[in-house]
């Protein structure tokens, strides 16, 4: 598997940065053959993962650190969103739709991530944090990736 590009971004857990994360990933992913609706869907998935890190991981405190990394290799984009927050006690339960306790929340973050990405992988440990890996593949065209080889 050849790595074509990678990036890593660290930011504070304030709500302004959800937009920053979306823009960063969209720009990072724009060099490959994702169509516009793929890019929109990737933005929703990233938005959900980063929002969860802020609201649930750090319980709304802006002082935590969220790490966003992305890796572009032949045919796939891999995004990781990591927090060092409270972690998830029952992950299976948390991933079910509509299971949030907050009436203002739909409990659909994981549902969106799973419907818009090819693969969603979660590592979590109570008291240590959560890392969500989002993977989406794209069609490899013959001359894609040329810029990275130059």
């Amino acid at each position, binding site marked *: 598997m050849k790595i074509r590009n990678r990036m890593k971004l660290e930011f504070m857990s304030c709500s302004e940065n*959800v937009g920053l994360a979306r823009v960063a990933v969209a720009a990072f992913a724009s060099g490959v053959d994702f169509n516009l*609706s793929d890019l929109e*869907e990737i*933005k929703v998935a990233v938005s959900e993962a980063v*929002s969860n890190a802020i*609201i649930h991981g750090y319980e709304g405190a802006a002082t935590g650190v969220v790490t966003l990394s992305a890796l572009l290799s032949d045919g796939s984009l891999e995004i990781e969103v990591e927090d060092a927050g409270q972690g998830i006690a029952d992950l299976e339960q948390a991933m079910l739709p509509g299971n949030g306790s907050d009436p*203002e929340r739909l409990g*659909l*973050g994981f549902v969106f991530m799973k419907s818009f990405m090819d693969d969603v992988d979660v590592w979590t440990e109570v008291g240590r944090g959560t890392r969500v890996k989002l993977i989406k593949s794209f069609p490899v065209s013959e001359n894609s990736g040329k810029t990275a080889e130059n």
Partner: protein
Amino acid sequence: MGYEINKEGDALIVKVYGEFDLHAADYARRDIDKYIRSQGAKHIVFDLGDLTFIDSSGLGVILGRYRHISEKGGRVAISGVPPTILKVMEISGLTRLIPFYTDFASALQSVS
């Protein structure tokens, strides 16, 4: 992101622009609820024609207002959802809960 809140008859018209995410959600929720109380609005029309992005935080604000309004016997309608956003709306189930209209006039008429 921005929003405009106006009143027409018994209905509050909430026009949302740009990106409706976590950052926008807190302000929007607070302002809309403030207007519902101060204006004594019974119904809401969300005009989403100029929305460029929405995720579960924005959808949660709409759903939360829908719950409050319908508990009190009011009606909610949505107009002008851009095609890029429709899929998120459909997966969320909001399209089955709240009537969607392509044009604003029909949405307004449906609640008045």
